[in-house]
């Protein structure tokens, strides 16, 4: 079954991260466990991007997808390496995994461009887990009347 372009992009993001990490997208009640060095891939808002929309018949509608990869740092209680060292490595390795493809930014022709946004720190309030969230802004275009068809 065909999926909307936004979903196809998220699938490709997971595939790319999965080459370096265990990478999960959550079901409604997740079945993965927040272990050390696992990643959770999720998305935020889909925002209209008129700057890349273009006229035509039908017109091409531009969108910006906020995608995120959370890398979990939960080393042993007895680990003597600073937690920030793990976070720094996670952030760098996730970005390397994402960009490890020819023309990485267009997701095999599904997107127009991708901007690396922030690498945010997170820490569980109970101190049980922490890590980084790598955020991406993925700009893509679809036919105005067909969200399943990418437009170059």
């Amino acid at each position, binding site marked *: 079954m065909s999926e909307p372009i936004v979903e196809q992009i998220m699938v490709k993001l997971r595939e790319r991260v999965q080459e370096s990490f265990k990478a999960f997208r*959550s079901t409604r009640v997740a079945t993965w*466990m*927040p272990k050390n060095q696992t990643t959770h891939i*999720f998305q935020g808002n889909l925002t209209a991007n008129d700057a890349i929309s273009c006229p035509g018949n039908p017109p091409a509608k531009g969108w910006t997808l906020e995608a995120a990869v959370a890398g979990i740092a939960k080393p042993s209680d007895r*680990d003597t390496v600073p937690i920030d060292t793990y976070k720094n490595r996670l952030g760098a390795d996730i970005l390397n995994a994402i960009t490890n493809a020819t023309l990485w930014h267009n997701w095999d022709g599904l997107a127009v461009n991708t901007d690396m946004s922030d690498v945010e720190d997170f820490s*569980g309030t109970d101190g049980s887990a922490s*890590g980084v969230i790598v955020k991406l802004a993925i700009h893509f275009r679809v036919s105005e009347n067909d969200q399943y068809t990418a437009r170059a």
Partner: protein
Amino acid sequence: MTVFADHFAATAFPGLLSLFGESVTYWPFGRASRTITAIIDRSPPSVFDAAGNAVLPTAVMQVHNSATSGISSKELDSGADEIEMFLRVGDTVSKRVTIMPTLSQSGGVTQLAVV
């Protein structure tokens, strides 16, 4: 431990374990697993906000603070150890879950949150 904790661990908690406990498997990182008895409160799923609002099943369990009949708080490694348990009552397939924080370690009882 305090005298109260000693008495609670020696007399009261074993009684609670025999009434409310169930068998789970403790997998200490890098060492052999062992079967222990735990009182498990299966909570509703909770939101794992820290890494993107994932909804994860959680539970709170209480075990003897002991390296033989339970889990010693001294040996516990919440970053690496795992518990094998049934996530829902009636499940036929057990699942290995990770230990999140150690909630308390008093009265001869180690209380853990798992997810």
